[in-house]
């Protein structure tokens, strides 16, 4: 390695080698063929010079020209096999050859370099316009940067390319490496947004390329500007998203607040209206209206109590106070016990169970019982009279899947995520529920590392799908439709 360095720049070494090789090949060919007039040998040497200039550039052409000049002198001018030249004509010829060879070599190499430069500019322009489209594409920043590194690696023939950048709180790193290529000296171009340095592009050419050209450097600088634009854009996008999220959260809060107000005050209104009527002294109520009013009070008290219970459950789960006491539990057993307890209410529908032999899962059986109860209550509430409710339990990809399908009106795909929000009621006409059942169910399922979602049932109804991971499985990601 150090010997190479002492020798000089690898590209100069390469030029010299190409020049020597071309001259040697020409000599070999000319000596073997040994054309009668020396003119033939001149043509062969000129061809060698052109070849050297094409492959190794102007320097190689010059090296080949000089060596060809010496070889012609040695092998083809009288007296042969000496560097002496007998005839004055031959001296002139040799000098003319040397001049022509150098000129031809440099012309060839310059023409080739021009062509290469044009091709290169075109490629650069294409690359930059590609970057610009990427920047405007709105793709995730990480993906855009990864794309940039890959493109730069290809376009500049680099051994390694890295982009390192800060976008707000995030630090992004993109890195591409060409395997098995010895690395030359790295250059680093800073990425600036305004006056702030927010990252850098590091480009490492292969050792054999002998450094990057000035054009390459310019291309990297242009790329750094594009990355800066991409970063700026991502920053603005993030701000917009943050602002929008905040608005949505505030709206959701206001909606939640008004729902709680409505749901708590409505039963209170019935109770107070009934009680204040009973307490009035200016009218005497008959037995029947008295009983009706008292029944109203009783029913509405129960309703309030249920609602408060649900609200407290939700608050507990959300506050993390309802820590699941997990134990190996057979989901089908929990389902059967809930079915038994709810038998009276389930009489309104036809229940079909498909309980396959599923492995036990680590869950809190009491909490799972509540989830299943909530889901079945919904299924009953939305089922038409005599509609079929199908409950299936089966092992499914490292989890146990519970699926409850009804023949109710179904939930349109846009609503399927929203029904898990507290107090959200898919159908405004259906007010009998608290609007909390699914919110509680999801909170509990998440606390168990499981997931729950709504699917459309082939029958047109709703399928609630719940998955609980097995003991040694990782928590399931809860996908949420955006």
């Amino acid at each position, binding site marked *: 390695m150090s010997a190479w360095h002492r020798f000089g720049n690898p590209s100069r070494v390469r030029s010299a080698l190409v020049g020597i090789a071309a001259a040697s090949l020409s000599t070999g060919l000319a000596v073997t063929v040994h054309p009668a007039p020396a003119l033939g040998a001149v043509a062969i040497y000129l061809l060698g010079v052109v070849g050297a200039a094409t492959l190794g550039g102007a320097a190689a052409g010059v090296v080949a020209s000089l060596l060809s000049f010496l070889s012609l002198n040695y092998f083809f001018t009288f007296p042969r096999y000496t560097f002496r030249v007998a005839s004055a004509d031959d001296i002139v010829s040799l000098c003319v050859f040397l001049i022509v060879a150098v000129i031809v070599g440099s012309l060839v190499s310059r023409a080739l370099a021009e062509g290469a430069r044009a091709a290169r500019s075109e490629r650069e322009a294409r690359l930059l316009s590609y970057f610009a489209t990427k920047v405007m594409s709105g793709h995730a920043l990480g993906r855009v940067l990864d794309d940039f590194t890959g493109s730069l690696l290809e376009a500049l023939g680099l051994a390694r390319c890295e982009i390192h950048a800060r976008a707000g709180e995030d630090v992004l790193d993109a890195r591409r490496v060409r395997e098995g290529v010895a690395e030359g000296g790295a250059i680093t171009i800073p990425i600036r947004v305004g006056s702030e340095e927010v990252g850098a592009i590091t480009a490492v050419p292969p050792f054999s390329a002998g450094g990057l050209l000035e054009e390459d450097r310019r291309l990297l600088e242009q790329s750094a500007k594009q990355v800066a634009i991409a970063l700026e854009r991502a920053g603005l996008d993030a701000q917009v998203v943050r602002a929008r999220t905040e608005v949505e959260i505030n709206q959701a809060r206001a909606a939640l607040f008004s729902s709680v107000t409505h749901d708590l005050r409505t039963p209170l*209104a019935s109770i107070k*209206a009934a009680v204040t009527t009973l307490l009035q002294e200016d009218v005497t109520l008959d037995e029947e*209206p008295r009983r009706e009013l008292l029944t109203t009070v009783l029913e509405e008290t129960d309703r309030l109590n249920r609602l408060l219970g649900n609200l407290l459950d939700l608050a507990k789960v959300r506050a993390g106070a309802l820590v699941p006491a997990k134990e190996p539990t057979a989901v089908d057993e929990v389902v059967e016990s809930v079915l038994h307890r709810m038998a009276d209410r389930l009489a309104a529908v036809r229940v079909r169970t498909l309980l396959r032999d599923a492995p036990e899962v680590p869950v809190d059986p009491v909490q799972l019982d509540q989830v299943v109860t909530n889901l079945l209550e919904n299924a009953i509430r939305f089922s038409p009279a005599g509609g079929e409710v199908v409950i299936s339990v089966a092992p499914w990809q490292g989890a146990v899947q519970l699926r409850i399908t009804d023949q109710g009106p179904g939930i349109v795909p846009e609503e399927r995520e929203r029904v898990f929000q507290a107090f959200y009621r898919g159908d405004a006409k259906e007010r009998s529920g608290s609007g909390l059942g699914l919110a509680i169910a999801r909170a509990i399922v998440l606390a168990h590392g499981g997931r729950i979602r709504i699917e459309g049932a082939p029958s047109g109804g709703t399928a609630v799908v719940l998955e609980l991971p097995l003991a040694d499985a990782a928590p399931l990601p809860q996908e949420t439709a955006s």
Partner: protein
Amino acid sequence: MTKILVVDDEPQIRRALRTSLEAHGYEVRTAANGTEAIEAAADASPDLMLLDLGLPDIDGRSVIERIRGFSEVPVIVVSVRDLQADKVAALDAGADDYVTKPFAMEELLARLRATLRRSHPEDPAPPVRRVGDLEIDLSRRLVTLGAERIHLTKTEWGLLEALVTNPGKLLTHQWLLRRVWGPGYAEESHYLRVYVRALRRKLGDAAAAPRLILTEPGVGYRWIAEDP
């Protein structure tokens, strides 16, 4: 018999209201949503309507607007919504009064009677109203407190007249401003505050313990003096 239309989507509240109102000698008809309410208002020609705002099909406010297209039936809104904005919107849409849930039956019945009285005056209202030692002569535009004659500006008189001729009714800022100042002043509620304060001082009424003018914060004013 006075016919009351009760509009609420909660069966329990409909039942409680029906029982109570029937016990007080009213004839009751119920509707569970806005469409039924509009139909009933047209077919049954009720004398008064108790309307919940949060109906499943049409918002209560739109129900009022649509009923106002063909009927002047008095409407009392009965709702859990207790924001000023909701009250003002309902009153501006044409409701006569607003009662917040939960309510005591006595209060609802009192509002109901006051509203019915306004819409069906048994006798033409007497030109002279007396409240304690305050006497208001509407035909001669004279106000006396005890033996003393009280001088009111033109605007103060306009305001007093608007209140006195709508006893018990919740009058919104906007309605009062339009009526007394004119259509261009609907947003100038600070004028109203200044004049109500002046009127209270001259009539010997206090905002903290009102006998005459009750402030409904953010919504409007109500003339609460009981007629003899």
